């Protein structure tokens, strides 16, 4: 049960400004900050990529609390997506209009898989 041990270690680790829960093999990461900017993006990226390096293969980013993302935040999400092997392993949900506008400005809406709800975002990764 090596994989379960890794997940338990992740769950017991206190991650600043993020909550993590699991649904089957999918980890749902929910930043608790309103802004993913240069003051938070590096930590955010490092913490989520650490999950990937510990064996997490499917991720949902629930952005329901996030109202603002700048290029640092965008870069962090793209880095996470690259680390996990592409958009077939990462989905986003509850993306606010203000954040979606930045995705569209940068064409990132073409590579991010964005679903309206957490349930749909999880389901997309389970198929």
């Amino acid at each position: 049960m090596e994989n379960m041990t890794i997940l338990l270690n992740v769950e017991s680790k206190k991650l600043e400004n993020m909550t993590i829960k699991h649904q089957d093999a999918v980890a749902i990461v929910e930043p608790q900050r309103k802004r993913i900017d240069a003051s938070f993006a590096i930590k955010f990226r490092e913490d989520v990529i650490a999950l990937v390096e510990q064996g997490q293969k499917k991720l949902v980013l629930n952005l329901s609390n996030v109202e603002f993302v700048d290029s640092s935040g965008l870069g962090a999400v793209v880095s996470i997506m690259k680390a996990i092997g592409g958009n077939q392993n990462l989905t986003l949900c509850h993306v606010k209009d203000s954040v979606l506008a930045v995705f569209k400005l940068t064409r990132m809406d073409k590579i991010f898989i964005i679903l309206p709800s957490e349930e749909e975002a999880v389901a997309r990764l389970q198929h």
Partner: protein
Amino acid sequence: MNSSPAAANSHIKLTIEGRLANIGMVGAVTRILSSESGFSVMSSTEIELAVVEAVTNVIKYGLSELPSSEIDLSLTYFEQYLAIEISDNGIPMPSQALEDADGSVFDFLEHDMDTWPTSGMGLSLIKAVMDRVEYSSMNGRNTLRLIKLMESIDATTDS
């Protein structure tokens, strides 16, 4: 809901300590001031984005070797446009940087992960959301000037 536009030629100046922890507040203040001056929610967010990107660049690159430095942010509301100036006394931006930020960083190939950018998007984003972007560096003083045209009353109606 439309806010009453600010009086033309009103001027607000802020001095920011050059720390990344201050970026959020700078952005929020910029967004609120823009909204109060009559810009739509989306335009106010775009202005916030431009200012945050600019201030972040100054902190990360211009002031990286200068502890406890300050950045001056000024917003001047004219009848037809908003003028924003971000000024600092740090290391100037490379002369070609603004011109090179032509948006090509966003021309990645959707099916080729290696082309997806993880950095270097800030200046292109600023140019994408503002109507004019200018940069000057003289006598140790660097200034990025951003212009955003005022919207018509119809455009400020938010659904």
